[in-house]
């Protein structure tokens, strides 16, 4: 991309404010008279709430109100939250998370009551004095054990924790396996924790009795959907609820969900007649923000004698958590990702979704694509080893070639759209990554390092991720009489530079001055429709809408300017905030042009145009644009401690055209860093009875700067034919292959010990244990 501003490394519009401390996050919203909320949370993973005594809490000085389920139910149309993406969910009407515990709690940390007080301190004091009479029940902990016949039920009214089964398949897989010359089987455990944006969740509710309107400020990735849920559960009219998303300190998935805390804060503000703020603390985030968790895989691969994949089949047991917060996307994504960049002619993957007494599972950056990729890449490494073929060579033999694009897979996305890779060249990207890491020279380096008693290894992986989930995200581009350009969008910024991206797109067509463009996002009042930020989608959906809208506005502005300057449109150019007759100093300002179509009472509009210098567009897209990321990394493993150190990490990424290479690099690096966390550090531990064990940052380890490799990022740019900008999403793609590449490298480093890795994350202790078990004394 080579525009004036589009495709350039322009500085971000967001930065000056954030760098000066002028960001406004949800907890920074300070309204006069605000009361502060704390939630009483269930201490048990599974228990019956027999009664609740709020008296001691109400007696604490400074406490304004304490509400439990029975207090709020009269104001609500239903007991539970709606299920997001309900299609295919059994009993979807009643499968959503509880708003407050009614009689049965199903995970530790679930909201039981809200305490509203003058300060958060007092609210916490009082929350400790809300006494529930609990009858603990046996809990379903590990999802694999929860499937056993005598396992405790996660829900007392069912005796089976198997929520549902799904199968994705094509071809004649069993037949292929019965005749294939080579088949290999792997059992794999994978775990991802929660996303942990550095800003936790938060909500501020305010009720205005004059307009009978609730306003909710929330740190959410989906303001418009949040508004619709409040309307639905509280039985209100669209005009009675406004949701505003101020600056968001990171989302990464778990804020793409409407939570009971948001609803309860909005309602409580109305009931107490004062603004109510809830700023989630980190412990609450550990307990109650959704996470991805455990998947137990059995997977088999069948190959021909020359190393061509004939088929893959298997089964995954997926921890679904206590409720269905957001559809059944995760295991579905994992299973549909497995064939990935390869030609897999026959395939079947069964998925068992299992209820446990843990917080619901819902997508975290990558949305189970990392797990699917991990399974396939582990199978590839295993097959390469068994067949005596180089790992890169075996992958290359099976990869879809660039000349075969677009390439249709015999699978559909969760939304029922065909999986068709729109553009790209997997073998080329992989080769570039291998060359960047000197893969073919590594054997010599490895030999030398082993001679020094160091164990280095190299690993590789390629992951594909569908991006730009439709159907649309609206954008309105408007030049006001001031000459300033406003862009309204349903996109939800949460740190991905959305404002800069939108301003670049619009400025490209309207004078090139990004400072003249203000992007309004995250407010349901001026923006009636919006889906928000998820699935690496906003550049494609909102960006394309803004692009088309800006072109429309440009056309109109030139038409009006031509009329005003008595020249033809072809002779005009927009520079900065003015429109010039090319090669002269004759001009009109954007403001004058906008004024001309703003209308003067009684006078005709110039040039016979429609009123208003604006355009609203909803670019429709159903098929996904597939980005992919080829990774090659070199690690050194200390077999005595199990410590892993990165020596280099090369990423070749293809997200089509690059709208701002600086921002895209930042997304790729950050996404890969998240993958490193999942590969080596992050583990949300629970005990057998489903009590969470890691509830602070000393126990749950996020990767820090010294452990992180410097990622060497370069790009292929295969434009997507699916949108006018030729772009693909960038938020998640680089997270996808990391755990696979890192474990491949560790296994390679530990080859002399015969260690085989079939788990992620892999911890130092596990590495030491694996070495010991492969080499019994």
């Amino acid at each position, binding site marked *: 991309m080579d525009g004036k501003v589009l495709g350039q490394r322009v500085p971000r519009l967001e930065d000056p404010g954030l760098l000066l401390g002028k960001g406004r996050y949800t907890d920074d919203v300070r309204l006069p008279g605000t009361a502060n909320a704390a939630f009483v949370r269930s201490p048990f993973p599974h228990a019956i709430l027999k009664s609740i005594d709020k008296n001691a809490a109400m007696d604490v000085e400074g406490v304004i109100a304490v509400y439990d389920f029975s207090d709020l139910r009269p104001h609500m149309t239903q007991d539970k939250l709606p299920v997001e993406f309900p299609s295919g969910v059994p009993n979807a009407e009643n499968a959503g998370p509880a708003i407050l515990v009614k009689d049965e709690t199903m995970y530790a940390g679930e909201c039981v009551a809200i305490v509203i007080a003058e300060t958060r301190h007092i609210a916490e004091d009082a929350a400790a004095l809300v006494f529930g009479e609990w009858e603990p029940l046996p809990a379903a902990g590990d999802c694999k054990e929860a499937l056993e016949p005598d396992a405790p039920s996660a829900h007392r009214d069912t005796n089976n924790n198997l929520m549902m089964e799904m199968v994705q398949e094509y071809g004649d897989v069993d037949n292929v396996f019965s005749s294939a010359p080579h088949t290999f089987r792997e059992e794999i455990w994978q775990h991802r924790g929660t996303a942990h944006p550095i800003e936790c969740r938060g909500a501020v509710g305010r009720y205005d009795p004059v307009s009978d309107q609730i306003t909710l400020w929330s740190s959410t990735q989906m303001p418009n959907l949040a508004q619709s849920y409040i309307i639905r559960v509280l039985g209100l009219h669209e005009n009675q609820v406004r949701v505003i998303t101020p600056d968001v300190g990171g989302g990464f998935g778990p804020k793409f969900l409407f939570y009971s805390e948001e609803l309860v804060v909005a309602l409580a503000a109305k009931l107490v007649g004062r603004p109510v703020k809830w700023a989630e603390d980190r412990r609450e985030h550990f307990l109650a923000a959704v996470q991805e968790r455990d998947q137990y895989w059995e997977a088999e691969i069948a190959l021909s004698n020359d190393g061509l994949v004939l088929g893959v089949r298997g089964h995954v047991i997926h921890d679904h958590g206590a409720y269905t917060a957001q559809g059944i996307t995760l295991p579905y994504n994992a299973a549909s990702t497995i064939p990935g960049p390869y030609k897999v002619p026959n395939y079947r993957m069964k998925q068992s979704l299992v209820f446990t007494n843990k917080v619901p599972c819902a997508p975290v950056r990558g949305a189970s694509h990392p797990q699917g990729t991990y399974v396939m890449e582990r199978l590839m490494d295993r097959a390469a080893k068994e067949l005596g073929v180089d790992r890169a060579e075996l992958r290359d033999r099976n990869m879809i070639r660039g000349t075969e694009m677009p390439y249709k897979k015999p699978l559909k996305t969760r939304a029922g759209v065909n999986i068709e890779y729109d553009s790209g060249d997997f073998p080329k990207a992989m080769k570039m990554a291998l060359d960047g890491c000197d893969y073919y020279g590594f054997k010599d380096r490895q030999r030398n390092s082993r001679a020094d008693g160091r164990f280095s290894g190299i690993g590789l992986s390629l992951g594909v991720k569908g991006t730009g989930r439709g159907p649309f995200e609206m954008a309105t581009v408007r030049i006001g009489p001031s000459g300033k350009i406003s862009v309204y969008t349903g996109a939800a910024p949460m740190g991905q530079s959305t404002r800069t991206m939108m301003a670049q797109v619009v400025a490209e067509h309207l004078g090139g001055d990004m400072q003249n463009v203000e992007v309004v996002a995250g407010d349901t009042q001026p923006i009636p429709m919006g889906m928000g930020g998820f699935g690496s989608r906003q550049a494609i959906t909102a960006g394309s809408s803004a692009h088309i809208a800006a072109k429309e506005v440009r056309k109109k502005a030139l038409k009006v300017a031509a009329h005003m300057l008595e020249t033809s449109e072809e002779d005009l150019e927009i520079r900065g905030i003015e429109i010039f007759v090319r090669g002269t100093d004759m001009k009109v300002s954007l403001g004058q042009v906008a004024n001309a179509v703003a209308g003067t009472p009684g006078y005709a509009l110039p040039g016979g145009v429609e009123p208003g210098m604006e355009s609203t567009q909803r670019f429709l897209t159903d098929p996904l644009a597939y980005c992919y990321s080829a990774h090659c990394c070199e690690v050194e493993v200390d077999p005595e401690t199990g410590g892993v150190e990165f020596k280099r990490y090369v990423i070749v990424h293809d997200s089509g055209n690059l709208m701002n290479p600086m921002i895209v690099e930042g997304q790729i690096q950050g996404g890969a860093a998240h993958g490193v966390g999942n590969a080596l550090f992050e583990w949300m531990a629970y005990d057998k009875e489903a009590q969470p064990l890691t509830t602070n940052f000393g126990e749950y380890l996020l990767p820090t700067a010294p452990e992180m490799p410097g990622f060497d990022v370069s790009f292929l740019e295969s434009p997507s034919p699916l949108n006018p900008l030729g772009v693909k999403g960038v938020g998640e793609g680089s997270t996808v292959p990391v755990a696979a590449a890192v474990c491949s490298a560790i296994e390679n480093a530990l080859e002399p010990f015969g260690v085989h890795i079939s788990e992620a994350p892999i911890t130092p*202790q596990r590495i030491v244990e694996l070495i010991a078990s492969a080499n019994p004394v």
Partner: protein
Amino acid sequence: MKPPPFSYHDPRSVDDAVSLLSTLENTKVLAGGQSLMPMLNMRYVMPDHIVDLNKIENLSYIKKETDALEIGAMTRQRDLEFSDIVKENCPIMHEALQWVGHRQTRNRGTLGGSLAHLDPAAEMPAVCAISDAVVRVKGPNGEREIPFAEFPAGYMTPSVEMDEIVTSVRVPCWQKGHGFAFVEFARRHGDFAIVSSGALLELDAEGRIVRSAITVGGVGAAPMRITEVEEAISGQIGSEDVFKEACEVCRGIEAMGDVYASTEYRQHLAAVMSRRALVKAYDRALGGDN
């Protein structure tokens, strides 16, 4: 995650502090705050009174006496880290400080606070254990000295009475040219170690070990000396093999086990890290580079 209600006291002298401690019930002493404050915010502790030592003068100093360092209990880890006196006379403390938390926590954390908190994996108690430090505490009945060997009374429990405060620490120095090393294995830089190990060695002219001290931290309830290793290497010429054999005894230490690191893994790391500390310390003793 906000502190519970409490009364706040900021005495200006040790005597005032001690008198507050001996009259008030359910009190916590606040030094650098890098352990107590998180526990307060998380309400893991719910004291009625906080006695803040930060306003007491003359508790922050580093002095060189004839054969020991005298360090005030409120001396910040940062001041120890950047102290030339420490670096020159107690190089193992200087080295261990590189592993203590992060810049922001070392700016506030104190030596006395670290000892009183007594995390099993903390570096400063390990340095005191290896140096045979003597902890001075003051209570209503005056001052007493506690040899560090007797300082830990249990898991995160020093043998300091509720009405006593740590006032200073005497850290004996080893002679010039001794070998030292402080090594640890942690998941991330600045984390509490899974296992740490310190080693101090003095050699004779032939390179025979004439004096040694070895500790492991993060294994037992408090940092501990491994006297079996000290005895096993006494009089020996050091080598990787000698140290390796001697340190195997660490696999039999009674070790903590939890969800983050198993007993076996800690024992294994104790053997590995103590050997590495000894190898490094021995090399330095031979090189005589301090």
